[in-house]
């Protein structure tokens, strides 16, 4: 039973987010603090999970993923309600009559600072709950329902087209210079967010265009999945505007950009500085892996990234831990925080990269790694021999 439940932690965390944002005032910051404490502290305290149980009812695991969509919709609704001038859908009145807590009064008292926290908070929640489930679901290209739900989830961070670029671009080019999502040695996370976002969107467009040309379909029509991807985000923005006007929309845009940035930061952590020859098979050592328990449960084994890239078609519950693969510095959230301080990040990754060059790289990769060090513009990397 527990083997099913362990992947339901995000549902509980989503409820915490819904409740804390509904309560308003400083409860918003408290909810955020709980999130950070669980994901940061949990990985430090609870160590690794290297089990790969077998499942008799994998469909249950798929339903758990699908649930992310209604939860995301509810969350964005509650945030819009916080920003709206009216009591949309009588939500505040309903909460008050249900619990006796004067949600409308609390909403009045919610400070600008709390609104700021809400942007960061919800961006993180969407990054975990919508983007990561969206990633898992859009890999299931054979299942139209999963693919559709996955793309809608990604549309909450303007990124439905990640479904195209990630599968048909990133998985093909991972750890080579052709991959927008692989950060070369010496690039800072902030540069990566911008570069990877722009190049990823361009790549998705090209991949889709090529597919349409091959099928002799017109590019500027509704069967263009890239266009449809942008239309999905536009539809969500219209819904948000209808609910909560300009204020709600500004909140949503900031939040969605931040959620997209969290995805790029995760890309950055997963392949930073790794190299591979074009056209050589993707191996477990072309990703940074981690088996931290809390991260793995919350993120559906996305952490088991080495196996994910070596066998991209496997559903998450079949991914193996690969404890011998190159390991990330910490769990996902702790490593995430480290990337935000580039000098510290580059310094911490130097011994990891040196170890990678010495133990994992093929002779050709070793040579490429030396070149990458020279190009990194970081003296300590350039001094490596």
């Amino acid at each position, binding site marked *: 039973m527990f083997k099913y439940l362990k992947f339901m932690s995000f549902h509980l965390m989503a409820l915490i987010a819904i409740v804390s944002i509904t309560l308003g005032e400083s409860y918003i910051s408290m909810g955020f603090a709980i999130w950070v404490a669980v994901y940061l502290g949990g990985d430090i305290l609870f160590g690794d999970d290297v089990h790969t149980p077998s499942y008799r009812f994998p469909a249950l695991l798929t339903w758990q993923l699908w649930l992310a969509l209604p939860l995301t919709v509810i969350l964005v609704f509650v945030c819009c309600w916080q920003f709206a001038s009216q009591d949309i859908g009588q939500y505040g009145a309903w909460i008050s009559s249900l619990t006796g807590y004067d949600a409308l009064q609390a909403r009045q008292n919610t400070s600008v600072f709390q609104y700021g926290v809400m942007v960061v908070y919800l961006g993180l929640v969407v990054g975990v709950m919508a983007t990561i489930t969206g990633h898992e679901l859009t890999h299931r290209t054979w299942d139209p329902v999963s693919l559709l739900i996955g793309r809608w989830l990604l549309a909450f961070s303007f990124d439905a087209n990640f479904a195209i670029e990630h599968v*048909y671009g990133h998985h093909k080019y991972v750890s080579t210079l052709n991959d927008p999502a692989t950060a070369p040695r010496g690039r800072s996370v902030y540069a990566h967010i911008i570069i990877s976002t722009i190049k990823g969107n361009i790549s998705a467009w090209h991949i889709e265009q090529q597919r349409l040309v091959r099928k002799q379909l017109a590019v500027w029509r509704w069967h263009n999945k890239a266009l449809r991807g942008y239309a999905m985000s536009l539809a969500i923005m219209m819904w948000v505007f209808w609910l909560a006007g300009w204020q709600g929309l500004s909140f949503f845009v900031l939040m969605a950009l931040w959620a997209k940035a969290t995805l790029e930061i995760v890309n950055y952590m997963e392949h930073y500085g790794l190299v591979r020859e074009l056209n050589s098979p993707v191996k477990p050592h072309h990703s940074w892996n981690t088996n931290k328990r809390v991260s793995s449960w919350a993120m559906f084994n996305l952490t088991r990234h080495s196996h994910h890239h070596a066998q991209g078609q496997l559903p998450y519950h079949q991914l193996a831990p690969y404890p011998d693969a190159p390991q990330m510095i910490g769990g996902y959230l702790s490593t995430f925080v480290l990337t935000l301080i580039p000098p510290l990040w580059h310094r911490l990754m130097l011994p990891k990269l040196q170890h990678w060059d010495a133990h994992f790289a093929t002779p050709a990769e070793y040579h490429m790694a030396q070149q990458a060090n020279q190009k990194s513009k970081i003296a300590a990397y350039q001094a490596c021999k």
Partner: protein
Amino acid sequence: MLSMFTAKAVSLTINDTLVVEQASVKQTVLASALAADIAFPHHCQVGSCGACRCQLVSGEVKQLTDSAYVLSAKAIAQGMILACQSVPKSAVNIKVNLRQRQLADEPQE
């Protein structure tokens, strides 16, 4: 009638040699071939690189992803499929060059 409820198995022939007598209809052609210790070329296994492309000589497969992302219109017309994205629906016969090839970025048009 019963066959509707039990997953059936089909034969898999590669380069005119019967390699798997009972290949699962729930597994890709690539997975069945690899399980039978055949060095079937492959890289990405998600239908993005084209390394596993091969020609379907006879039989029917279900494709798990749109092969037009990878294969040219001409190749598709010639019956090329991606082994990592093809699940057999009947007994299949496949032609493939089993020597490992550089493929992902070979010009395809």
